[in-house]
């Protein structure tokens, strides 16, 4: 007998046990000064990967 599809509370349980961002993390995701800095950092990281991969 195949197992039946998910019980109704599975979604809530999965979401309860998932890691959630703190309010600070969510705020920083769209906080302009921080994101300008991250824009520079991420671009540098990506350029590093691109240079290494094109080598």
């Amino acid at each position: 007998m195949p197992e039946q599809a998910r019980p109704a509370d599975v979604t809530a349980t999965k979401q309860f046990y998932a890691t959630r961002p703190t309010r600070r993390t969510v705020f920083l995701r769209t906080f302009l000064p921080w994101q300008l800095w991250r824009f520079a950092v991420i671009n540098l990281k990506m350029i590093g990967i691109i240079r290494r991969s094109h080598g």
Partner: protein
Amino acid sequence: MSRVVILGAGIAGHTAAAFTRRWLGHEHTVTVVSPRDHYNWVPSNIWVGVGLMKPKQVTFPLAPLYARHGIEFVHAAARELHPEGDAKDPTPFVASDDGVRISYDFLLNATGPKLRFDLTEGLGPEANSLSVCTADHAAQTAAALDAAVERMRRGERQRFLVGTGHGTCTCEGAAFEYVVNLEFELRARGVRELADITWITNEYELGDFGMGGMHMKYGGYVTPSSIFNASLFAERGIDWITRAHVRKVEPGRALYETVDGVEGEQEFDFAMLLPPFSGVGLTAFARDGADITERVFVPSGFMRVDADYTAKPYEEWRAADWPRTYQSPAYRNVFAAGIAFAPPHAISRPRVTPSGAAVAPAPPRTGMPSAMIAKAVARSIVDMIGGGDEPTHTASMAEMGAACVASAGANPFTGTAASMTVFPIVPDFERYPEYGRDLKRTFGEIGLAGHWIKILLHHLFLYKARLRPGWRLIPE
């Protein structure tokens, strides 16, 4: 004079055509054969699919561009490969679906995939689900989204199902981008509270993306991408079903089974489910007319190249199995790039459901690696025309990294995207025994900066594809 023929005008084919034309003297010809007469920057189809862009913003006609740059364009689909010519003439040629014979000295197969909606009953835009694989599919999906939003504005609750429509799909990353953009867009249109959104995937764990997931150093831990993916879904209120093979899509209902033995059904009002891919179905013939398709292609229709295709258990798969030059072992003047080459094996561990259905995410080979492979093959072809005996350039996915930006909502001030780098793309457990990748070069984060980069890349890569001044300075 040499004739270089490139099948396909997607990211791989177009990149190879542009570089080959640039590097080859004009006594040689470069010909692109493609059934599509428009270039499509496929990564931005996601935004067409949520109604933020029109198809014309992600496509442009190829013929005028190629005419300006000295590239011949044949608007047709290649059907037959004759690498030894025929009884009358030993010159290799490709035959198109309308009977045109296109002779070549060097051939690059960059056809991309055939979209195999037919492998799941009821899957696809001509049946019961939607797609964003082409700009036209994405526009159709956007129209269906508009209709769903209208129903929600009248107070009706709507169920959205997004993900992979078969156990052997690839491009989970594209479907992931779609589901989070969809959620963002429903919020932007003020109807999110009336939407139930479910992600269904053939990945064993969230965040696998067909490349075995990735591990990153974060907050004092080495954390798998599944944690980040589950976190984003929980934060956005998106439900998820993993390890699933969708076996049938009926109007308003998807039937699936999982590796764990669950047989389920998911009702929907709107379903965007990607299809599995195969090769485009080229057949190959020897000079005497004998069918040699099995010698040139693997059973799924992708082209054999310099990979180790020996069948062996997952535990014995090695990074070194992956191709480096993309040259056909059967014909030294034939190459494949992008989705058209046959990977030696999956990256993620393949599994089956109790009923025997494969749940095996196929390895991604689109975007940055696709273009880098095409550029390396173009260089090798040019060098071989110049007198070299063997390919001079390599681009193994087990030796290169990739940078990827997955949009999670498009807005210049409130949008976000997940920015990721991995090195190497194919995990190398001999070099990096713990996780298969260099943790110093594998990272990911989500934020507005990623969205800005995604927008920047959209414009940069379309600028590059249009071969505007300085295009070659923009990296792949």
